């Protein structure tokens, strides 16, 4: 087995797993829609990264932060429907990617490419996802309580601002890491689909959260293996593997 393939697999497993884990919190707040525009917003950043030859996650990150500020403004301040933001950001993001980049690179921006990931990039991804995993595990029950009811959380003296900040920060990092794997277009799916499958299959929070993580890991591994076998781009294959698991989970819904 060649090193490049192993590196891709390591990145896929770590990012896919933690994206699934975090996704179980995002679904609970009906925020899966938010991950969409966040991913699309990263497209200009990815384009810059590809044009000037630096890590696309690094390029994506400031745009994710911008996205989080935008969402905060949209949701908290103007109460405009999230769909408006989704449509605007989606269209502009795709337009910018195609305007700035040659078609081959535009493809990498839109659907990702982890098949060329370097050892350094892989190491950074693993370290960041490990840190994220522990951070999410630590805030998990508080965010669940906030998701259920902010008032209940307040009455339990949960510092809502603090936990929301850590939570949004985690989303920002996982989206930035995710774009490398599945591109700006598909990052939302990386977060939302494993959690949706796990929701169908579980009866309690432990099954749900760790189920989402395991399904994320399986989807990523399957996608990367299929890439090896077929030569199709890995990003879309990861998402389709995830979708296949979701369809199966519908049959066994509890």
């Amino acid at each position: 087995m060649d090193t490049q393939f192993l590196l891709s697999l390591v990145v896929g497993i770590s990012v896919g797993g933690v994206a699934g884990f975090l996704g179980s919190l995002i679904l609970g707040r009906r925020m899966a829609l938010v991950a969409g525009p966040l991913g699309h917003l990263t497209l200009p950043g990815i384009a810059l990264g590809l044009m000037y030859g630096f890590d696309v996650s690094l390029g994506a990150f400031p745009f994710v932060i911008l996205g989080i500020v935008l969402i905060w403004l949209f949701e908290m301040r103007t109460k405009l429907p999230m769909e408006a933001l989704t449509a605007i950001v989606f269209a502009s993001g795709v337009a910018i990617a195609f305007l700035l980049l040659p078609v081959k690179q535009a493809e990498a921006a839109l659907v990702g490419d982890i098949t060329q990931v370097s050892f350094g990039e892989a190491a950074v991804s693993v370290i960041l996802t490990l840190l994220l995993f522990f951070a999410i595990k630590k805030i998990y029950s508080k965010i669940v309580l906030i998701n259920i009811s902010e008032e209940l959380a307040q009455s339990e003296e949960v510092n809502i601002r603090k936990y929301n900040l850590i939570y949004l920060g985690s989303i920002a990092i996982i989206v930035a890491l995710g774009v490398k794997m599945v591109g700006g277009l598909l990052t939302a799916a990386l977060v939302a689909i494993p959690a949706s499958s796990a929701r169908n299959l579980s009866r309690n929070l432990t099954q749900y959260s760790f189920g989402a993580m395991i399904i994320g890991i399986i989807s990523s591994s399957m996608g990367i293996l299929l890439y090896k076998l077929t030569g199709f781009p890995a990003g879309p294959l990861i998402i389709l593997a995830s979708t296949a698991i979701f369809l199966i989970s519908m049959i066994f819904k509890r």
Partner: protein
Amino acid sequence: MESDFILKVKNLNVILDHQSIIENLSFEVKRGDALTILGPNGAGKSVLLKTLLGLIPYRGEIEWAKAIKIGYVPQRLPFIKDIPISIRDFFNLKRSLGKGTEAILNSVGFKEDFSRKKIGDLSSGQFQRVLIAWGLVGNPQVLLFDEPTTGVDIGAEETIYNLLAKLKEERDLTILLVTHDLSVVYKFSTEVICLNRQPICYGPSQEVLTPESIQKLYGGEVRYYQHKH
């Protein structure tokens, strides 16, 4: 200060989104009281409970007895059914899970192993009892109970108040209860506040609930009758 003092509220005013929700409300709660906050929908009842919990900014004075523990039973939790969460999970979210979950669930009438059930599978009446049990974790001396206005199974409402009366007795609880249902006052409470943004009546239930005050409270829509038990 006398030892049976629990809560003192003086000239309470709450304004939300430039709208006055509660105006000039004053009342006192003593240990062992069952105070009903009665009023039509939108009268500011739930807001009052949340204000007492310190969740909403206010003007005026709210003074709780020192070191008092308060349990809160919210009106409804619409988002809880979005995720797979068992009753035990829900209790694990609680800050101070001193006494075992099972024991508290038993005290609101659930048998062994019930805590493994998924909250999404509960009936509304069962869920209501789970919420009460949740509010009782940590042995509070005071329970703030916000009555669900819709969605409790028929027949369950009666048993909820029987349950509250039983718990009050067993645990020496002081209860502040929000309701729009006049009959609850007669069944359950010792004191009543009629609230429709402004306080309309306040005092021992049997004395202050007159046809006049009720008509003023509900704008004449409700017919007055008193249960003779």
